């Protein structure tokens, strides 16, 4: 290319992006697939910027994909057709296992920063003894957000057992407030009572995850596992929900519990991120407790590992992709993420401590971690999660299907998933 044409080609591009045509020689463009959603997007942009500052020869280009199951589909399609960008965000745990990591993903076990990453996390991004992902964001928990003003007003204290929880609910209802916000307009939010109950399931049946994966334990026939469905039905039967529970959305649920229209909202702790945007002033009135079980002495928290960044095995920029992931997993990268992204729980990167000013809902979580009263969610222990759970829990939570029947139906759903994965014993 002559200099003349170079200038001509560069000029319009340079107008759009000053970086594009720099010292043209060794410029590498690293493509980075993110989920839409301003919170994690901000963290991705900050990480890209920090990395570009350290490596001027690299441009990081972020592309957004839809979230949820539509996004899952896109990821699988792109991997299968070798159209995957150099680095992408995806779930750790069983969803990542479904990507066939041994063939589809780049092995990054030997990155220097892996030494500082918690083993709990590495376990959920590994396959066949090799590590494939680095943490993006912090851990989070599934439990119940509660409105501290209402608790103070009615003289309540965070419950340690389900019975106490229901007693609190009756008092809240009697006071003319919504006891439990439910938001089936966003179907996924209906699963919380079942998923966040897993700490209690594991305490009662320590082998449940393994037996369930091996087709030896079922939701319908394990009383402890059935509890989650029963709780959901009970909340509906006793009329503790908001009247528009069928249409209300996730944002409505957050607003209700934040502004004191509702006392409780079962949710994942990542909701703090959305609340920071929508109700920043109400965050101080929000507390968080784990989903209580039968025994006050066995009270603990169900924990979700962070999502992870992966690189596809087919990436043409292997070295740059590895280096970028190494940066993300370092304490420096973790701090960059934490500075813009909302903290949802403790980090899995050693030495990357939480800032002092975390909202009360987050600091409420810390004792569980400190005292070791946590268990990973089932999706990190077993590769099988039935795809229809959210529809089934909507049915239970709307009184359309009895809990026992729903659990049996979910067991059927799980069977299909296990068969597709080719698990033994199904």
């Amino acid at each position, binding site marked *: 290319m002559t200099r003349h044409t170079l200038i001509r080609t560069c000029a319009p591009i340079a107008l759009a992006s000053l970086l594009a045509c720099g010292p043209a020689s060794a410029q590498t463009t690293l493509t980075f697939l993110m989920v839409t959603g301003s919170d994690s997007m901000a963290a991705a942009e900050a990480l890209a910027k920090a990395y570009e500052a350290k490596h001027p020869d690299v441009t990081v280009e972020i592309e957004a994909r839809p979230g949820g199951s539509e996004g*899952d589909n896109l990821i699988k399609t792109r991997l*299968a057709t070798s159209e995957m960008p150099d680095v992408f965000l995806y779930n750790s745990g069983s969803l990542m296992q479904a990507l066939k990591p041994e063939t589809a993903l780049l092995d990054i076990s030997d990155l220097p920063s892996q030494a500082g990453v918690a083993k709990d996390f590495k376990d959920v991004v590994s396959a066949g003894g090799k590590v494939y992902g680095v943490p993006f964001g912090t851990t989070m928990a599934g439990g119940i957000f509660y409105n501290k003003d209402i608790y103070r007003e009615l003289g309540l204290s965070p419950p340690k057992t389900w019975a106490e929880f229901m007693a609190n609910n009756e008092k809240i209802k009697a006071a003319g407030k919504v006891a439990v916000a439910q938001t089936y307009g966003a179907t996924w939010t209906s699963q919380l009572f079942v998923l966040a109950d897993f700490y209690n399931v594991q305490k009662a049946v320590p082998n449940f995850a393994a037996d369930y994966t091996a087709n030896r334990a079922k939701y319908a026939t394990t009383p402890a596992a059935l509890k989650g469905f029963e709780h959901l039905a009970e909340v509906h039967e006793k009329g503790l929900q908001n009247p528009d529970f069928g*249409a209300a959305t996730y944002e409505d649920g957050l607003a209700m519990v934040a502004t004191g229209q509702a006392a409780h909202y079962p949710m994942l702790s990542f909701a703090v991120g959305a609340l920071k945007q929508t109700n920043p002033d109400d965050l101080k009135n929000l507390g968080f407790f784990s989903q209580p079980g039968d025994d006050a002495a066995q009270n603990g928290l169900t924990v979700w590992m962070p999502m992870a960044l992966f690189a596809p095995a087919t990436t043409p920029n292997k070295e740059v992709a590895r280096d970028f992931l190494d940066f993300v997993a370092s304490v420096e990268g973790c701090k960059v993420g934490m500075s813009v992204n909302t903290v949802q729980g403790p980090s899995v990167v050693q030495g990357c401590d939480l800032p002092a000013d975390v909202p009360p809902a987050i600091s409420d979580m810390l004792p569980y971690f400190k005292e070791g009263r946590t268990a990973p969610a089932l999706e990190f222990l077993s590769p099988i999660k039935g795809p229809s759970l959210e*529809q089934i829990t909507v049915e239970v939570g709307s009184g*359309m299907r009895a809990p026992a029947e729903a659990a049996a139906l979910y067991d059927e759903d799980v069977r299909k998933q296990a068969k597709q994965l080719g698990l033994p014993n199904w």
Partner: protein
Amino acid sequence: MPRLHKDKMRTDIMARIAQTISRSDSKATAETPDITERTAAGGETTRRRRPSPYPHWFLLPAAIIYTVLFLVPTATSFWYSMTRWDLKTATFIGFENFHQFFSEPFLVQGLVNTLIYAALTSAMKTVCGLGLAVLLTSDIVARGLLRAIVFFPVLVSTIGVGIAFTVMMHPTRGVFNVALASVGVAGPGWLTDPALALFSVALVDLWKGVGLATLIFIAGLSAISPDYYEAARIDGATRLQQFRRITLPLVRPATVTVVTLSLIGGLRSFDLIWAMTRGGPGFASDVIASVIYKQYQAGFYGLSTAGNVILFLLISVIILPLTVWFQRREVEQ
């Protein structure tokens, strides 16, 4: 060189299609020319028979695009429907996917829902579309404006319509129920009541789709010569008689088009249902297409493709006899 091989196969397929087309061209009846003969004779002036004024090569450009981008993937999907498929490797498992699909507890409900939805939307669009078309071809004021208003919803994106109506059908704050409450009626849970959700979506489908049906009917009505009505008026026929004896029979091609298209659209319907209820609450408004999509989302590609094939068969079972019946009636007339 797998790519080269594939490309060659594709060229072969196209060549075969071209051959098929030209071969049956020469096989056809007396009015068809013999292509080889004509070429050999070296020109139009010396050919023995005049070629058909409707040459088959008119179909060729469309046929190539259609075959490569639609028929070939569709055909391969039949094979994938008999595999357990993770997009990279497909393991042949026979009819297991189909067996699995029919043991899916919601398929039966999804099947019934699909039929209800298709029949309902198709019937409503046909009746309302014809009614509106008659009104909008009659001599009323503001006719042009009315046509534009009725047709307007067709223009808006389905996702956009879905979002807007979902908001308006909100059980407590939505426009519909707020309006009903103001006259003292407690509005229903349009999309949250499992018994009602499917019908609410069908209503929105009618709202959005009736403009297209009306347009097709207007085209059909306009093609009817005014002379017929003139003659009927002279014979003293009432308006109702004119409608039954002239309009209905002569607008048949348009009716066939509307019924067929809206029925197929209803059986395949997915976008609006997905935008409004995602098949919910629970599984209450699931149709086959949404069940298929959920399997697809869940990563059950072979299973989902099997669902595609089942939907295809269901549609064939309904539409093909209907088309044959329509065509026979057309011939009879």
